[in-house]
């Protein structure tokens, strides 16, 4: 039995790594008493798989993981999958909120394979609205946007342009809600994940290619809002949402609590 979860990762906990997040989930699933299926061999591990790694420091409203359960150890009353989000959220660190859970068929490919693109909201500092608009237009007009990327510890040149599917400056009204003091500006982007994923920091690096060195855009915060898969030629999310939060823009800041 395979269960897919969608969860949000917001606030302080965004500074943990993907590995850290995996370990939090492992402990929470054990604390929740779920009958995890384990791998074979000398070092059995729970069969849990995450999708695309979320870069350390980024928030998300659309993280997914698949968990394999041992059907033989599910009690006679079965498992109330719909109740799992409420059961698991209190067992996870503050800022990790489980929003959906559903069984998925074994035939469905792994998250790593099926996700084709991700939507992001970014907060960028260092440029004004006009300047940012010009940088966005320049990037979209370019046929090639060479950036330096780190890969296995080595720096490589790579063309960013094909991976930028959509990119726009957020509406002024949204910015006012997200950042009342106006230090940062919003960007909305959809970035391809195949053949490999683009990180928000790389997108901003791409924007900076044509920028005035005195007014370089600096990534302040980033939040992954959706991951997309293609199913029967249609773009959809790996789990259908029961309700899409209308205030996804505001969420990262609204949820932050001064300690």
């Amino acid at each position, binding site marked *: 039995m395979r269960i897919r979860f969608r969860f949000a990762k917001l606030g302080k906990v965004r*500074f943990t790594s993907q590995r850290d997040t995996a370990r*939090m989930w492992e402990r929470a699933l*054990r604390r929740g008493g779920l009958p995890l299926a384990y791998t074979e061999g000398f070092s059995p591990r729970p069969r849990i798989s995450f999708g695309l790694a979320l870069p350390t*420091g980024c928030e998300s409203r659309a993280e997914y993981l698949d968990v394999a359960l041992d059907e033989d150890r599910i009690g006679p009353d079965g498992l109330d999958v719909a109740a799992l989000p409420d059961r698991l959220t209190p*067992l996870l660190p503050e800022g990790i909120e489980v929003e959906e859970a559903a069984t998925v068929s074994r035939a469905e490919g792994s998250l790593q394979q099926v996700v084709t693109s991700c939507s992001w909201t970014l907060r960028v500092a260092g440029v004004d609205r006009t300047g940012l608009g010009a940088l966005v237009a320049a990037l979209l007009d370019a046929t090639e946007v060479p950036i330096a990327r780190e890969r296995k510890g080595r720096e490589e040149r790579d063309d960013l342009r094909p991976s930028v599917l959509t990119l726009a400056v957020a509406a002024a009204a949204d910015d006012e809600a997200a950042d009342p003091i106006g230090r940062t500006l919003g960007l909305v982007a959809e970035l391809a994940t195949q053949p490999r994923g683009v990180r928000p920091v790389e997108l901003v690096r791409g924007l900076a290619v044509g920028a005035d060195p005195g007014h370089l855009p600096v990534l302040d915060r980033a939040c992954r809002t959706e991951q997309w898969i293609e199913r029967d030629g249609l773009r959809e999310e790996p789990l259908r949402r029961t309700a899409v939060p209308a205030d996804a823009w505001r969420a990262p800041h609204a949820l932050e609590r*001064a300690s």
Partner: protein
Amino acid sequence: MGREMDTLWLQVESLLPHVSKPARYIGGELGSQEVEHRPGAVSWLLLYPDTYEVGLPNQGLQILYELLNERQDACAERSYAPWTDMEAAMRAAGVPLFSVEHHHPAGQFDVLAFNLSAELVSTNLLNLVDLAGVPVRSADRTSVHPVVVAGGHCAFNPEPLADFVDCFVLGDGEEAVGEVNEVLAAHRGPAGWGRGAGDDRQGRQRLLRALSTVPGVYVPSCYEARYDAVTGRQLGLAPRFPETPALVEKRTIADLAAWPYPRAQLVPLTEVVHDRLNVEIFRGCTRGCRFCQAGMITRPVRERPAEQVRTMVSDGLARTGYDEVALTSLSSADFSGIEDTVTSIIDDPACSGQVSVSLPSLRVDAFTVGTAAQIQRVRRTGLTFAPEGGTWRMRQVINKLIREEDLYAAVDAAFGQGWKRVKLYFLIGLPTETDQDTLGIVRLASRCVEIGRRYHKGVTVTASVGGFVPKAQTPFQWFGQNTVEELTRKVHLLRDAARPVRGLTVRWHDPRATAAEGIVSRGDRRIGAVIEHVWRRGGTFQEWSEHFDLDLWTSALAASGLSLEEVVYRHRTEDEALPWDHVSAGLHRDFLWQDFQDALAEHGLEDCRWTPCYDCGACTGFGVEHVVASAVPPAGGSQGTGQDLSTGGQVPVRFLPTAPTGAAPGRGPGQDTAVLVGEGRG
């Protein structure tokens, strides 16, 4: 006086995208407390002077964290040493040291309390006090500054840090921490000490004098150091006040069962060392290994009742979600009925067969491996044994009475039951050590490889070799440490001898770091200036090889008119005043001296847990005794009692006449080196 502390979170948050492993600075651990700073409560910041990953698991600090937060008149938060990139960012942005719970500024706490587990963290202690915005020297602090407290094993020679630490607490902290807190609370106020007190030193001095009367507490400023006019060495300390005791004796809790802590072990959001549930099954050890400070200063043995161990394990696993539990102590296989205890843990249905139990510090015998095989059936990576000495003679000197046949039986059992990697710990630079003893390490380890080959082709044995640092309050406290050159020579001897042996790897601790540890280990008050010199020149994180620099230490010694010869390499004489004579772990000085003489005569000494007392002083002095459930030593192996210690069961070896190549001319005995080959080799 209740008060609001400032939070630095927004400043800290702006730094985190630019530093490595930012999760170290966000707190949020399971078990982390919503700390309420109540009116009148003394606020403690508990500090581990190394990184978060190393410091968070420290059980001593976690115990104090819970005990203090349970009190109405106290509260406690935690902090760790920021890594160098974070420290640079903090200093550049003017952000002081902060607590991980609420990001409160360290300088706003009443107490900065440090755990000192290793000598070389001492420069980090200075750095953290400085990052807190507090003067690093006690003498420069006024009544408004926090009190700097330190405890832990290194407190048993407190003198190197006497200039910087206001008060040391010796021994078990469970009871002492409350008594110290009461004195702190009583002296706080406008006319005393604390924020809001007058900016003078009188309130602070009154507080420190009062603290010096708490049993187990040593306040360096309440003592006058006397120095020899000719040699400059510290001759002793005289109390400056009538109420200050001349001898400060450690605290010992009589019954571990009364202290089932930590009740809610911290589970960090990010990976740390020892990332598992830890349950302390007993405290103290009387194996009597003469090099081991931990075993000497934590006596007597106090076992936790097996039933309480089981409860702490099952509650802890359910609460944390960990799938591994370590039953911790200085020698966990010695716990009475250890097999029953671990069996009941893995057979607990709540664990559903997926919990791994680990016993740090395995005893060396096949019986123990059998237990290990049973309990580590979930994950089986490597097994570690610590024979410490390469020959039976050497092991008699250090009183680590492991027979060769026990080691081989243990290794045979380990490889036979599926382990493919075995790690062996050894010390070099021990008293009376000859090159034959040193090379015995390779001989033993090579035999272990051969034994393993009978089971698998790809077995590996790692001999991990550390340079011996004599420690205060041990029988070897008089022994002059081997020089950097001598330890390096021995390391090369081992490396060259091991090179032809396939499957054997020798790893060693940097002899230069060993020398620096020796400076702090047995130094007197003059070493304070040395530590400050190293710190002022950027010498933080000296436990980390990428930051360690012996030149900083030797130039600091020279600046104080000292040398490695004087402080580290020199044998102390029987009648010489030792810098730690005014603090006591209960052990009589004449017992320690006699044990040193027995060592030199190669006499082993049995474990007093199961044999008559030989009056070391640890029990009798404090009116406590061993709490051990079993009246007889564990079955099997040679570390019990009743064995014939005169034989040692040495496996015969053949001597080949050729000297190993690359053996540098040595000093002292043992120059006539020979290749020693176990008889099993073809």
